[in-house]
């Protein structure tokens, strides 16, 4: 028995697909499969597709639970998927995270077609990051493949993956942020207007963007079902063409962003970094909390130190290029317990979608046992003009147990740069004011001045 029905919460984002829904019971997420999806679910399991996809780590594995916990008349089965440490959304991913998510979706589709199944939707919300890589999480997205039909989710796939990637590739801008406005993807007609003229000369872009935009505009929706005769070869060609179109897309990682050479700068010497690392290692040595969030992670130098103890690390930074670099770094390396995402703490992802419940706000997902915030506070207070009292409250909301935070005083070279062109800033901004404001929520366990600087590292414990 999973739980008493009264304690079961139907997940508010899980309503679009009539095949089933996600619910939460006893702190775990389950998925109910409805009778209408029974044949497709059985085909997924019996065709060998589930086995191949989970072995290749492309689909989240699950176990079946024989329990109609919701006492629903539509009930066929309940499954318990492997639980994810953190839910992220496409508008929080970096370029290569979205690109890899797209490639995984196409690989899943290709393997499905070979097993007589197809993906009935192609949204980027079907992907989550798990153990350093994108994984397909919607077990109910597979349906029996009818070879005479084109891919029903083709347009959705283009709008959710290909189009934002193309915009980012051609303009070298943060196009993913647009996805928080276009939750269902950027339409072809919009993409066609946003892409530069030169993109028309690339055949794949012309076919998937410009042709699609003009055909969609000319064809009014009808109530008659679309009649078109397709074939498996045609579908495999289409998938291949999408893979070929996405594979060469790039953003410049060498381009200097705000922080991606922060540690290389001479102003912060190697000595400073060594001293800080020593204190940091000492501070975290006897903390063994579950989830750790490294905010303002930059290139992930300290996230990697945290990851050595096999914790579950969420590394966030507002600079998408830093996040992208860190993601690629993790992808090619051996450390897999860091998940990097693009989050601006002074403008975190809001609650979005139907009833503001479909996509949770960052604050609802972010609570972590340990939070680390190194060389960050001066940016929040001095650049973004957030008073210390509000910064303290924000960190108190985020932290369950420990907060390791670096205070960068006003006399610091970096702080001076931030206020150089400002008439004023929120005063007092001093170690005393910092301690006073944070003491409302935290008690100081450890405190150390980083030798050679006036910066202070604190280990605070939530009251």
């Amino acid at each position, binding site marked *: 028995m999973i739980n008493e029905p009264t304690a079961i919460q139907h997940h508010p984002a899980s309503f*679009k*697909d*009539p095949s089933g829904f996600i619910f939460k019971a006893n702190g775990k997420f389950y998925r109910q499969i409805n009778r*209408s999806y029974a044949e497709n679910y059985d085909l997924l399991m019996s065709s060998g597709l589930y086995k191949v996809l989970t072995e290749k780590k492309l689909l989240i594995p699950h176990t079946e639970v024989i329990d109609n916990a919701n006492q629903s008349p539509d009930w066929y089965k309940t499954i318990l998927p492997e639980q994810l440490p953190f839910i992220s959304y496409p508008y929080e991913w970096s370029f290569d995270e979205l690109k890899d998510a797209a490639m995984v979706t196409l*690989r899943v589709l*290709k*393997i499905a077609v*070979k097993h007589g199944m197809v993906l*009935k*939707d192609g949204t980027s919300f079907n992907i989550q990051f798990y153990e350093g890589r994108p994984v397909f999480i919607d077990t109910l997205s597979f*349906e029996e493949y009818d070879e005479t039909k*084109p*891919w*029903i*989710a*083709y*347009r*959705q796939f283009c709008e959710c993956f290909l189009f934002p990637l193309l915009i980012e590739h051609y303009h070298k801008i943060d196009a993913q942020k647009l996805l928080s406005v276009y939750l269902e993807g950027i339409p072809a007609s919009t993409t066609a207007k946003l892409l530069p003229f030169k993109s028309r000369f690339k*055949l794949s872009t012309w*076919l*998937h963007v410009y*042709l*699609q935009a003009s*055909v*969609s*505009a*000319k*064809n*009014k*929706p*009808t109530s*008659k079902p*679309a009649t*078109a005769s*397709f074939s498996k*070869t*045609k*579908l495999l*060609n*289409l998938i*291949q*063409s999408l893979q070929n179109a996405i594979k060469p897309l790039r953003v410049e990682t060498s381009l200097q962003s705000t922080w991606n050479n922060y540690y290389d700068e001479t102003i912060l010497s190697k000595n400073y970094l060594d001293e800080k690392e020593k204190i940091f290692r000492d501070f975290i040595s006897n903390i063994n909390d579950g989830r750790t969030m490294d905010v303002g992670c930059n290139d992930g130098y300290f996230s990697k130190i945290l990851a050595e103890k096999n914790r579950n690390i969420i590394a966030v930074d507002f600079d998408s290029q830093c996040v992208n670099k860190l993601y690629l770094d993790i992808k090619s390396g051996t450390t897999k317990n860091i998940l990097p995402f693009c989050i601006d703490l002074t403008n975190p992802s809001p609650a979005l979608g139907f009833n503001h419940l479909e996509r949770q706000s960052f604050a609802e997902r972010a609570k972590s046992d340990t939070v680390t915030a190194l060389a960050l506070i001066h940016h929040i207070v001095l650049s973004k003009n957030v008073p210390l009292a509000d910064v303290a409250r924000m960190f108190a909301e985020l932290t369950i147990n420990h907060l390791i935070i670096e205070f960068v005083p006003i006399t610091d070279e970096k702080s001076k740069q931030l206020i150089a062109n400002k008439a004023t800033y929120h005063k007092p901004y001093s170690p005393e004011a910092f301690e006073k404001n944070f003491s409302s929520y935290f008690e100081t366990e450890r405190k150390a001045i980083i030798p050679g600087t006036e910066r202070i590292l604190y280990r605070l414990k939530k009251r």
Partner: protein
Amino acid sequence: MLLYIDPGSGSYLVQMIIAGVLAGLFYFKNLWLKVKSFFTKGKKDEAAENED
């Protein structure tokens, strides 16, 4: 069958056209690969590199 996304009649038409163009392209690509492999005997075909 109950489908919860509307593919739009346009999307099907686009795929028909794209598939047509691609069929032509892949036909010539394969032809080219055959010609190339005739002259560079025994070398592995590019098309065989697909992992899935």
